[in-house]
């Protein structure tokens, strides 16, 4: 459960950096002994590779550089500046704790936290804007709209509470659409927590819909079950004929697994409903026709709800969608600010070195 370790640099990258560090140190030693060849000998031979944080970025620069060599510090500093974006500490080895905290940036965390949390805490309603409808949403809507009363829909529920914050937004309008069409959902999940997540969402949709006048939905027990064995056992569900298959997946791999292991067997059209990050990876499958529709992210949820409620009014999760839109606006502004600042810092530090 070490979150930071998953963001650590790859071993190879670290090895490269270690080698670069060693090469830098040895080159520095050579250079110090022969000052005349300093610049010409180093430039072009060693690619400047970042081995630590740049000044002003983290806590590294706050600690004083340990005096570890007997060389003239100023001379050494100039050499190091030529070798990398930041002064290398010759003879000093980087501690593992420094590597682990490479993405530990409190001011960045604070900025994002404030940018997203404050509008929600104070329930700001603006700026709202409008969700972008990406290609694939209208196709998914059409595929579900073609369902007939009593049709069987195979559902792979490939998300759990970890990603429900995003996926529930997407699943709610699609499940409602399928239930409205009178489809029978056969839900399976490869995640132990999947069926419980599915049952909560489906029963929530049923409850909300049943409060609306003139709506009668099937109230039979929800058919959702966990299948142990992982993706390897998915082909077992290819023997079952169905009118449509819908994959609610937090990752592209879940949709890929269905397209590779089940769809070729029962030839059932597939609609993918995924987290936004999985969207680009699944575009080739949409282009090849293996996916009949693709809905992803908060914008996919909002555009699908817009299509579903084009004639009937506001979607039941309107408040959540509005909060997502406002929160996303602030989050994206914060991310843009971070990207611009990062580039400015890089440009300024590089410029200062050239001077």
């Amino acid at each position, binding site marked *: *459960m*070490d*979150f*930071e370790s998953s963001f650590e640099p790859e071993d190879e990258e670290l090895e490269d950096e270690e080698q670069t560090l060693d090469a830098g140190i040895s080159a520095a030693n050579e250079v110090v002994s022969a000052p005349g060849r300093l610049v010409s000998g180093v430039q072009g031979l060693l690619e400047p590779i970042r081995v630590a944080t740049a000044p002003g970025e983290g806590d590294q620069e706050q600690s004083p550089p340990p005096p570890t060599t007997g060389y003239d510090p100023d001379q050494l500093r100039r050499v190091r500046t030529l070798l990398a974006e930041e002064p290398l500490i010759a003879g000093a080895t980087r501690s593992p704790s420094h590597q682990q905290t490479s993405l*530990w940036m409190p001011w960045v*965390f604070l900025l*994002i*936290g404030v940018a*997203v*949390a404050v509008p*929600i*805490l104070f329930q700001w309603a603006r700026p709202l804007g409008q969700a972008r409808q990406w290609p694939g949403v209208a196709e998914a809507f059409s595929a579900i709209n073609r369902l007939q009363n009593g049709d069987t829909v195979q559902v792979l529920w490939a998300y759990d509470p970890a*990603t*429900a*914050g*995003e996926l*529930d*937004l997407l699943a709610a309008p699609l499940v409602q659409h399928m239930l409205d069409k009178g489809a029978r959902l056969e839900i399976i999940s490869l995640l*132990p*927590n999947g*069926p419980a997540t599915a049952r909560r969402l489906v029963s929530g949709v049923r409850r909300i819909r049943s409060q609306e006048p003139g709506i009668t939905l099937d109230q039979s027990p929800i058919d959702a*079950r*966990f*299948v*142990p064995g992982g993706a*390897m056992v998915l*082909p077992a569900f290819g023997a079952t004929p169905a009118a449509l298959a819908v994959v609610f997946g937090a990752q592209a791999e879940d949709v*890929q*697994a269905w*397209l*590779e*292991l089940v*769809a*070729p067997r029962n030839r059932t059209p597939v609609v993918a409903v995924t*987290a*936004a*990050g*999985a*969207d*680009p*990876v699944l575009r*080739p499958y949409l*282009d*090849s*026709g*293996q996916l009949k529709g693709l809905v*992803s*992210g*908060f*914008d996919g949820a909002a555009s699908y709800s817009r299509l579903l409620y084009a004639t009937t009014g506001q979607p039941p999760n309107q408040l*959540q969608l509005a*909060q*997502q839109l406002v*929160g*996303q606006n602030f*989050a*994206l502004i914060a*991310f843009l600010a971070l990207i611009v600042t990062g580039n400015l810092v890089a440009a300024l530090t590089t410029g200062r070195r050239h001077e």
Partner: protein
Amino acid sequence: MNSLLGQADLAVLLGTWVGIVVGLLIFSAIFGDHWLARLGQHILVGVALGYAAVVTWQAMFALSFVQGLLANPAGDIIQWIPIVLALLLVIAGGERILMQGEGGAGSGSRRWLRWLGVAPAGLLIAAGIAIASLGVLQGTLLPQFWRAAQTGFQWRAAPEPFLTGILTLLITVSALIYFGVDPDRHLSRQPRWIASFIRGWIWFGQRAVWLAAGAIFARLIVSRSSLFIAFVEGIVASFMTTGIGNTILTWWQMITGAL
């Protein structure tokens, strides 16, 4: 009835507080690695594993062949095979679990115990290889190669889709070459012009993949932001349920003059 309802309310209230505390403990990892965050993580892992064990146990006993065996153990002898395989897996796996970190792994009896696991593990590996290979072949390689070829050669298309098709094919091929060809290993013995040509493809493919990585990164930003927004919403909603949230809201409205 009233007492039952009261218990349900109490369970919800207690649950709401437990949810808030556990959520905040885990989220406190944002301030670094500390004891409270680790406590939250250990509670979560314990609950997740326990829940997974219960769900898995239920799912295994719901399998039709297990139900068949429970109803009539002498009915179909073939159906005992997976039970035997499971037993072998448990013996071999149990030996590894219980004896890990201890010496004497090469001793005769322990080697025999491990050897027992070969049949079930071999079946899992073999089936995994077969299913994954067949899947990737029929679900990704063949349809995607076919579609790539189709988009690249739309001879009767209008100029715009025709050019897009050609570009699409070029990018696909260059990205594939970038992934498949290691210049140092594969091009060192090639004639210079071939090496230069392939290097050009790799250069192009690398840039296309970087561009696509940027697009994925941008979509991941909204994905992760959605999760954080939902988490904050959830915490706020939970506080409101406890009544404390409403009190704070009232105070806030009094302070700001909104009340």
